[in-house]
């Protein structure tokens, strides 16, 4: 193989060089001798030999190129030379490497976050066959399924190899002296089979585990097994006490198992719902998520259709059950698990990806400009090299080598930036971000970084390399430089930079204004000075409701005694906490036996007062609205408008929750109307709600949120309140301690996350654009020193010269700004989904961006302009 021989030649390079040298010398000598024999003088003979041969240096190089593989060896020389060049101008090298590191690092970090979420398939066998299934009510959003629907579908459907439902489970382990709460899931028997992962120790759940009132069994995550059980191989068959009951460990999941449906879950227990489906039971609550694995060869469409055919039969068979839950589903919605998980964050991730690409472009443009400036300084060096016989391609290769080495060094530091960036991303990421644990800088991410680095090196190096045109190379030495076209290129680049920065700034501005609008939205309650926490009641399986009720009331009493506490209350669901608890409301005379959906707040008296939710009409709930007394409910203004438009809602009768649609159940009376409260998020106007005292609701929720209005710093009082609750029962875990203001902020975490990244990227873009303007202007002032000297010698005032330079610089930013703002109009459609309260053409944002960019570029122009002013005409004229 000739290639191998050529590479082998590299090793013996010096020997081969000597041979080539000798061969050429022999040729010359023979020609010289023949010439002399023909009668030439020795000098003439030598001259003729040289003339006939051509440039021996060039020949030698071309011969060794023919010997060596594709000039591999001269590549080594290029690399050495490039490093020497960079060392000689450390300022340039450091700036370029730093900028490149920022761009490559940011891009790589964002890519590493996006890869597992949007690009990788989920870590399950044949992950594309795993579907999420939701109940649909026609036009409405998908809602969680009831056990009744799941049970019916699982019995009748043939489209799925495995079908399972799940719900969150937070058992308390009372091991040593403190209660420890676990995150876990209650799942139906086929959950792990649907995902396609089996335990690596022990066995999976089966039908006999997941039966009504069946034995307590639990499967552990690898983490729990290692942390709490020291990776004990004989763990299967042992028991652990959860919520006061004994659970038998039947299996341990593999270490690599990633539970994308509930990333924090560490324990799994069977669901054990009642397959007889009593109409008034939890079996008809919309609180389960359903996941299924399609049978081989069955498509998503076929599965959807099959379920559509099953539904009518189900609705007929379980009419009573569906009546208690808002009616049977109109259709079933089947989504691929991957898209189901990522849909919510997709717009945000794409916006961030777009922003980081803009940053990378700005980096590209900036470094290209730096290289062009340097290229101008090295003009005579290139001419010298050309004169000594370097071919045009040879010089081009040298320059590309240099830019690739710059990019390589940038990438090395960029990887450090990427590592730090990924860590920061994970720390700052919104809770909605799926697959957080899979985000890391790994081999494919590294390859991606390498890819963009190579691309950058070539793109960035190409412009300056092409600038050094053949004509210029042979143009000759001295001061007569053709600066026109180079200036033109650099100006275009600066304008590009400014416009890219403008696009980024507009995006940032729009997000910033959206946040402002969001946080000025009326939550419906007074968030400042509110402390919240979730209190769980566990144990006492026999009279759980009575015990829970007693405990929460006693705890409330104790909390109210704490100095600094103004008022306190408990609620089953807390606004902006991610909970969403919806039940039906049947209105007397409206004939809606299924009930219209509304948010349910089962509260202990004092909750509405503590939240300072305004009372619009009627009265609030009090201690007299208790078990046995007539049932009293408060409704929100929006529910009042929906159910009783134009009428007085006070005194109207409704049946709520499980009572809805049941003739034999008593009516509840609307006693008051309160203001609307944002439950899901500040942006979503989902506000139909009713409030009822826990003592008049069908059961007592075991996890309740405590809200406390305090004087002064809300967070500071948390320990005192916690010990007040534990003074009642120290076995009850307290979690999710947060001020209401934190919750409000957290509810917009995804927008905030995107905003934060945009802010960072826009800042980088702005700084780079400013340095770009400064660089070009400073270079131009240096080149025009003589001209400026002449101008001031001829009587131009300092003001004239200042204006001369400023005008040039501001022209860049004005043109760039105009282009950038027009581009932003188009580009902002990518973040429409993230905007709130403004359109993507928000004039204030565009005006503010224009003002900011002009201000910053004016500042960037000022430094070179001042230098131009200080040019002494005498020195300037003498210098040339």
């Amino acid at each position, binding site marked *: 193989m000739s290639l191998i021989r050529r590479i082998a030649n590299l090793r013996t390079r010096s020997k081969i060089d000597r041979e080539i040298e000798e061969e050429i010398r*022999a*040729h010359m000598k023979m020609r010289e001798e023949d010439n002399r024999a023909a009668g030439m003088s020795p000098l003439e003979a030598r001259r003729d030999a040289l003339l006939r041969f051509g440039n021996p240096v060039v*020949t030698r190089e071309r011969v060794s190129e*023919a*010997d060596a593989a594709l000039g591999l060896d001269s590549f080594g020389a290029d690399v050495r030379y490039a490093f020497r060049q960079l060392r000689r101008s450390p300022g340039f090298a450091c700036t370029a490497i730093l900028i490149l590191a920022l761009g490559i690092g940011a891009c790589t970090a964002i890519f590493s976050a996006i890869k597992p979420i949007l690009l990788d398939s989920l870590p399950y066998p044949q992950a594309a066959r795993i579907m999420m299934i939701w109940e649909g009510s026609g036009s409405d959003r998908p809602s969680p399924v009831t056990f009744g629907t799941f049970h019916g579908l699982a019995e009748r459907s043939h489209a799925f190899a495995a079908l399972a439902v799940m719900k969150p489970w937070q058992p308390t382990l009372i091991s040593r002296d403190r209660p420890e709460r676990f995150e876990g899931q209650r799942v139906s028997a086929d959950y792990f089979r649907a995902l396609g992962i089996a335990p690596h120790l022990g066995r999976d759940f089966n039908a006999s585990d997941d039966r009504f009132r069946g034995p307590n069994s639990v499967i552990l995550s690898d983490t729990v097994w290692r942390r709490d059980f020291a990776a004990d191989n004989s763990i299967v068959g042992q028991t652990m006490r959860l919520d006061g009951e004994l659970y038998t460990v039947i299996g341990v999941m593999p270490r690599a198992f990633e539970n994308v449906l509930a990333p924090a879950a560490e324990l799994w227990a069977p669901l054990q719902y009642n397959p007889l489906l009593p109409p008034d039971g939890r079996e008809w609550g919309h609180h389960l998520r359903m996941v299924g694995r399609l049978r081989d060869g069955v498509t998503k469409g076929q599965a959807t259709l099959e379920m559509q055919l099953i539904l009518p039969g189900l609705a007929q068979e379980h009419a009573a059950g569906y009546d208690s839950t808002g009616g049977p589903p109109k259709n079933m919605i089947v989504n691929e698990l991957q898209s189901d998980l990522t849909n919510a964050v997709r717009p945000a991730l794409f916006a961030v990806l777009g922003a980081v690409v803009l940053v990378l472009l700005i980096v590209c443009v900036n470094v290209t400009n730096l290289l062009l400036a340097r290229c101008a300084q090295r003009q005579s060096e290139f001419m010298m090299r050309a004169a000594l016989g370097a071919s045009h391609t040879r010089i081009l290769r040298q320059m590309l080598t240099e830019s690739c080495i710059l990019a390589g060094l940038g990438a090395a530091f960029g990887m450090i930036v990427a590592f730090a960036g990924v860590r920061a991303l994970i720390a700052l990421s919104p809770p909605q971000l799926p697959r957080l644990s899979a985000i890391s800088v790994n081999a494919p991410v590294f390859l991606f970084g390498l890819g963009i680095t190579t691309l950058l090196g070539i793109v960035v190096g190409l412009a300056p390399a092409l600038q050094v045109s053949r004509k210029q190379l042979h143009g000759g030495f001295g001061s007569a430089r053709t600066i026109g076209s180079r200036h033109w290129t650099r100006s275009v680049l600066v304008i590009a930079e400014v416009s890219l920065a403008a696009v980024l700034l507009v995006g940032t501005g729009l997000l910033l204004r959206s946040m402002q609008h969001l946080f000025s939205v009326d939550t419906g309650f007074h968030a400042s000075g509110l402390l919240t926490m979730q209190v769980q009641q566990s144990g006492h399986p026999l009279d759980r409701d009575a015990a829970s009720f007693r405990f929460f009331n006693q705890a409330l009493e104790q909390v109210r005694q704490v100095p600094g506490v103004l008022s306190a209350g408990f609620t089953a669901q807390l606004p902006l906490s991610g909970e969403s608890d919806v039940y039906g409301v049947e209105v007397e005379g409206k004939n809606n036996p299924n009930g219209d959906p509304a948010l349910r707040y089962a509260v202990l008296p004092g909750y509405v007062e503590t939240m300072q939710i305004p009372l619009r009409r009627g009265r609030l709930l009090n201690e007299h609205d208790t078990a046995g007394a007539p049932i009293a409910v408060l409704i929100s203004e929006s529910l009042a408008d929906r159910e009783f438009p134009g009428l007085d809602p006070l005194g109207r009768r409704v049946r709520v929750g499980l009572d809805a649609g049941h003739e034999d159940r008593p009516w509840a009376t609307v006693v008051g109307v309160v203001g609307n409260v944002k439950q899901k998020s500040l942006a979503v106007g989902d506000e139909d709600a009713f409030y009822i005292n826990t003592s008049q609701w069908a059961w007592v929720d075991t996890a309740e949120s405590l809200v406390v209005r305090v004087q002064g710093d809300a967070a500071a009082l948390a320990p005192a309140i916690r010990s007040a609750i534990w003074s009642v029962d120290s076995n009850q875990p307290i979690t999710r301690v947060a001020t209401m203001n934190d919750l409000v902020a957290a509810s917009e975490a995804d927008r905030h996350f995107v905003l934060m990244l945009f802010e960072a990227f826009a800042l980088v873009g702005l700084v780079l654009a400013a340095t770009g303007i400064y660089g070009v202007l400073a270079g131009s002032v240096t080149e025009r020193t003589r001209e400026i000297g002449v101008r001031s010698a001829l009587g131009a005032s300092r003001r004239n010269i200042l204006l001369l330079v400023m005008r040039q610089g501001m022209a860049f930013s004005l043109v760039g700004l105009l282009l950038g703002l027009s581009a932003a109009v188009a580009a902002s459609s990518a973040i429409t989904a993230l905007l709130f309260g403004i359109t993507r053409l928000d004039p204030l944002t565009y005006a503010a961006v224009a003002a900011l960019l002009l201000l910053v570029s004016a500042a960037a122009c000022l430094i070179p302009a001042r230098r131009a002013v200080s040019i002494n005409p005498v020195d300037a004229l003498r210098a040339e």
Partner: protein
Amino acid sequence: MFKVAKNDLQGTLDLLVLKTLSHAKQLHGYGIVLHIQKASDELLRVEEGSLYPALHRMEQSGWIRSEWALTESNRRAKYYALTPAGRKQLQEAERSFEHLVKGVRTVLRYA
């Protein structure tokens, strides 16, 4: 069909060298230059420098082989000789060249 490309001129030099070596048992670079000059009745004058990259390339391709030997005037020089692969290459190159010449001539006559 014969595709005309930029490399054809280089190919011509290769052809001349291969043909020259097919007559002689072995020759050094200078000798090849002289032979081409003489054989072409002084019509063709090879730029001597450009001969060597071609020689080395052909050697790397295995068409010719080289060894150091003494000339008649007792000077060390590198002698090149044709390999069997080179002989085959020569036949092919001659054929392509015939095609090229025929093609070019046809075009010239057409005008």
